[in-house]
């Protein structure tokens, strides 16, 4: 009796573990079967390379959106990565122990603030600010990039911090023993040693930024055209879906799902890169 129960439960646990595999397969299956036919119908080149998105005249080119996603993500990385990594260095090495738990609460709170609140903040503060300072319509690449930079900070900070703290203490002590200052030891010995972990944090940050929807939709302006300056409005793949899914039908709807497929492929590639970096870190 006990033996039977043990082996039954073993199988139950195995099944729960396989759920995540099943979920991935289901997500892939449903997205691809619903999205790929539309890409075939529109024509892969016209879909991916087309620069006109006019659902009313059956023109579905998502090139502006792919570009839009890349622009705002690049912007977010340029602004967010240095600040994030430096903050991680601060928390891991220079933070007075008194305030360390407060600092960690702040970063966890940052990670917990809902996208929609970031978006609302961007809409009510960032956009008018850009408007005042540069005298342009505030909604656009710059606003979205700044907002995304803020939003990816907690990801970059926490993963970089983990990587920095995982570096063997002997490296740091060795550098100090050679007479290097604490700052030099951290920046020239520990930081390079934590390289793959830090890179992993950046890759994960890219994933977050490219997938973010609700905050971007409020500040990006959402014009489905190729932007010409950082102040121009921009539409990303994610916002394309959320803006039109509510009323789209037929091929239009399928084209939106296909946009999701393209986004999903981007994410899968980014994830793969992340896993590779992570396993490199583990080997070290």
């Amino acid at each position: 009796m006990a033996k039977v129960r043990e082996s039954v439960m073993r199988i139950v646990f195995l099944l729960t573990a396989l759920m995540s595999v099943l979920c991935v397969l289901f997500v892939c299956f449903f997205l691809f079967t619903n999205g790929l036919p539309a890409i075939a119908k529109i024509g892969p080149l016209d879909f991916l390379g087309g620069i006109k998105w006019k659902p009313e005249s059956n023109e579905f080119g998502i090139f502006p959106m792919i570009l839009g996603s890349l622009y705002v993500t690049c912007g977010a990385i340029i602004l967010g990565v240095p600040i994030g990594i430096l903050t991680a260095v601060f928390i891991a090495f220079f933070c007075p122990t008194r305030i360390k738990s407060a600092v960690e609460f702040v970063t966890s709170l940052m990670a917990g603030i809902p996208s929609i609140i970031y978006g609302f903040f961007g809409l009510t503060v960032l956009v008018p600010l850009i408007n005042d300072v540069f005298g342009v319509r505030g909604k656009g690449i710059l606003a979205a990039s700044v907002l995304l930079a803020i939003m990816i900070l907690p990801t970059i900070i926490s993963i970089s911090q983990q990587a920095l703290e995982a570096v063997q203490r002997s490296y740091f002590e060795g550098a100090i023993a050679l007479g290097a200052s604490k700052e030099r030891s951290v920046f020239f010995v520990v930081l390079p040693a934590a390289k793959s972990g830090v890179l992993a944090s950046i890759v994960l940050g890219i994933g977050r930024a490219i997938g973010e929807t609700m905050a971007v939709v409020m500040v990006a302006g959402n014009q489905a055209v190729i932007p010409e300056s950082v102040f121009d409005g921009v539409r990303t793949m994610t916002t394309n879906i959320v803006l039109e899914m509510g009323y789209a039908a037929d091929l239009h709807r399928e084209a939106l799902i296909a946009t999701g497929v393209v986004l999903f492929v981007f994410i899968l590639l980014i994830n793969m890169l992340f896993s590779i970096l992570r396993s490199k870190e583990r080997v070290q």
Partner: protein
Amino acid sequence: MNNKATQGKDLLSVILRGITVAAAVITGVTVAIIVGYILIKGIPSIDSSLFALNYTSDNQSLTTSFINTVLMTALALVIAVPLGVGAAIYLTEYTRNSGKLVTLIRYAAETLAGIPSIVYGLFGMLFFVVSLRMGFSLLAGSLTIAIMVLPTIMRTSEEALLSVPMQYREGAFALGAGKLRTVFRVILPAASSGILSGMILAIGRIVGESAALIFTAGTVAEFPTSVFSSTRTLSVHMYSLASEGLHIDKAYATAVVLLALVAIINAAALLVMRRITKGRQHL
């Protein structure tokens, strides 16, 4: 530059120290501005109509959305926690060595963790709403979101189980306890705070989620009558307020409530985690 901390240091070291502090200050100030701005703008707009029992387009009450959020969270956890904890038990207690299957499971969990909410929203709409004919509903929303938080729960539970000392397992086996009894009576209780902190993190994600819910649970601001009713959670409510732009003061006030909720959830997670690190000092 002649204070004690920098005395006798070269210029580069001083600069390096300076930029790390500057970066940390920027991070801190940014959070302070966001939180402070929303509190300052929002708190004066909080009044009793915001918490009125029934939602009307006039009072924009958040009571229904709040209750829907609680229901959605509870339902999603009921689905995701047994799956996530069970998977973690399988990975830590049944296969310590990493075979192909374990690698596959871990890779799948990592992939799930990286998928953006909007893609989950699309999937939930295609699978639960359309194919399984659930319609925009509480059930479709919570199933979608359960998949979304599954990797979080799996990962934190696995970490919690791995940190249970091997001696506990030996002790239980030496007393003739079988694997199941050891897992349920000794290991899970010892790992409970870690699992709990993972659940709290998951709650935080669910409460803040909007993109995955708009096309799965819908946006109806009413009390659900069954799991098949369309519901709007607090975050989705906030989205409609912000994007409609008609009730901007209500949006600020709702943001305050949402922010307070998230702050409480995060503080709880940190407290639970701190309790674990303290408890570990015995062994």
